[in-house]
């Protein structure tokens, strides 16, 4: 029997409220399947399961608030024989069962307070009284913003308290990249055009191959590098606040696929329907201020990650090339990194590699490694 536990959906998460089960005992589930919705202080997150198997028992009921690590359900591994039915029987007294039928309530979903944990008549009637109230609703918007502010405050305070940040910056010419994008997007409808952000993300992922000490987690005094690059893409939310869900295995995917996934991720982040793996997987954060942003951003690392790459607006600046001053599109790339894990010299090598990669956009478009690992496997 496998325990399915409430995963941490971010460094700032200590507990979550189960909103809904998408499965019931006896359902066959596949690794990666969304089985539940959990309300964190930030969002209602679709939680995936990490094993193939058959759902055995749901231990936490919708509306229950439980700490991270709580066993939410048990799962039979493939081939595991079912326990005798008596072991999972939910005792319901005869009168409670009869009353539940009259009231149209499923007694197996009611908490028992009677002899040997059995569901009693009073439990059914209490459940019936509680029913007209809507199922536990996600936290109201205003509360959500307050909660999110608190969550960000907690994570960022912890980061600045624990992580000795160092910062580097590099201005990168974007002439070649801009031209390549223009050619690529020519004639394409707006919805299919590629954004510069995708090139930047791809370049970050490839540059990290040379400096793996920037990609991974620092936990319990040790750094654990990650082979796949799951880029946490900082997405500001319309009501305020931000989330940084993972774009999985950026290095291994072609650009058009990344573009589709990025658009989907932004849409879902703003709709509040992110998946648990997207919340817990990022191995590095990339924040991109975009067109309307400032020149440069020096970010605060999201623990337990060890680096954050920032991009300012792509601006036309005077740039010396071949002994001449020319007006070229450039972007200011910055690195905030954890000095416990890496040093400024290695950080500088990363930024230089990033710069060189962005001069060869065609190579970026063609460079993708074979899929290295499935999302969610690394943390």
């Amino acid at each position: 029997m496998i325990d399915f536990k409430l995963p941490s959906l971010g460094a700032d998460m200590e507990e979550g409220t189960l909103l809904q089960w998408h499965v019931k005992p006896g359902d066959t589930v596949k690794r990666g399947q969304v089985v539940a919705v959990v309300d964190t202080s930030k969002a209602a997150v679709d939680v995936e399961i990490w094993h193939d198997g058959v759902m055995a028992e749901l231990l936490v009921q919708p509306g229950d608030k439980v700490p991270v690590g709580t066993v939410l359900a048990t799962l039979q591994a493939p081939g595991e024989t079912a326990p005798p039915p008596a072991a999972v029987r939910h005792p319901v007294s005869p009168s409670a069962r009869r009353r539940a039928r009259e009231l149209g309530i499923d007694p197996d979903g009611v908490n028992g307070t009677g002899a040997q944990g059995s569901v009693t008549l009073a439990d059914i009637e209490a459940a019936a009284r509680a029913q007209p109230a809507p199922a536990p609703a996600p936290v109201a918007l205003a509360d959500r913003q307050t909660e999110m502010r608190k969550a960000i405050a907690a994570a960022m305070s912890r980061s600045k308290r624990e992580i000795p940040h160092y910062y580097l910056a590099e201005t990168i010419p974007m002439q070649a990249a801009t031209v390549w994008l223009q050619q690529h997007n020519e004639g394409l409808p707006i919805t299919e055009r590629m954004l510069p952000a995708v090139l930047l993300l791809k370049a970050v992922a490839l540059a990290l191959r040379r400096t793996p000490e920037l990609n991974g987690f620092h936990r319990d005094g040790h750094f654990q590098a990650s082979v796949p690059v799951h880029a946490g893409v900082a997405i500001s939310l319309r009501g305020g606040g931000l989330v940084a869900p993972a774009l999985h295995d950026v290095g291994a995917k072609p650009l058009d696929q990344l573009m589709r996934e990025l658009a989907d991720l932004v849409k879902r982040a703003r709709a509040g329907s992110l998946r648990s793996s997207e919340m817990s997987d990022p191995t590095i954060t990339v924040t991109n201020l975009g067109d309307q942003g400032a020149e440069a951003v020096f970010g605060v690392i999201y623990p337990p990650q060890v680096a954050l790459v920032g991009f300012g607006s792509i601006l036309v600046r005077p740039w010396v090339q071949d002994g001449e001053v020319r007006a070229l599109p450039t972007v200011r790339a910055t690195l905030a990194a954890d000095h416990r894990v890496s040093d400024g010299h290695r950080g500088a090598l990363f930024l230089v590699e990033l710069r060189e990669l962005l001069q060869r956009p065609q190579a970026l478009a063609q460079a993708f490694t074979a899929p290295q690992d499935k999302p969610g496997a690394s943390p």
Partner: protein
Amino acid sequence: MSRRVSYREAVREALREALRADPRVFLMGEDVGRYGGTYAVSKGLLDEFGPERIRDTPLSELGFVGAGIGAALGGMRPIVEVMTVNFSLLALDAIVNSAAMLRHMSGGQFSVPLVIRMATGAGRQVAAQHSNSFEGWYAHVPGLRVLAPATIEDARGMLSAALADPDPVLMFEHAQLYNSEGEIPEGAPPVVDICSARVRRAGTDVSLITHGGCLPKALRAAEELAAQGISAEVLDLRVLRPLDDATIMASVRRCRRAVVVDEAWRSGSLAAEVMARIMEQAFFDLDAPLARVCSEEVPIPYARHLEEAALPQVAKIVAAVQSLMGAAP
């Protein structure tokens, strides 16, 4: 207007009333005459009614119970006192094969209007052979009516109803009850039936179903449970055969939980029979498994602390109820 009497006095008054009311009535048994009865129930009756009607017998239960059956067949209304239920085993053949079955065996030609009284129960440090509770055995037998007066009112009122019955009636008086006291109305004796169970304390959460010597324990347990916020009903069976199913089921349906308290051993006991009937008739009204508090399955010990440990006690009843209530109040 009411007056306070003991259970012993109430039975004596009932005997006196019966002896005065009907010349066919006589009392027969070991030491009932000159000694006044082993439990002093018939004290003074010999002087009042003489040796023809208050008859001391030899120590031969089979003999004098048989003689009582014969007298009943012959038109008398005998009251036979068997000192305790323990000794009634010597008269089992007379009681079961003769008294209980003669109406059937004679095709309805004969009835046996006999009353047999006996003391029952433990709790007096008289050791295993004098501490049994076999009333449940007799409640097994068709043809017998089995009574267990547990209150002063029933001790006073049941005898005349038993004598009016044309068939054999067994009355079990728990030896621990003789000294108990209670109020009965002044003047005319209380009229009670010998067919129904009675709620002695109303409640809503659990029904304590009991009889005889366990009734006071169940009432004390209900008192303790009330202090814990559990409302216990106490049902006195009164009549062990035939059982008053309607009243039992009404109480179980009200409370949805039941604990049967019976001083007999649990295996094959009257408690088991009551529980089986509840399962047959009120299963869908139950909100918890049934439970029972019976005596430990050992010969009742002589040593006081062991005897107390072997018998149903207030604390055991309270614990059984608590286990049925789970986390509920």
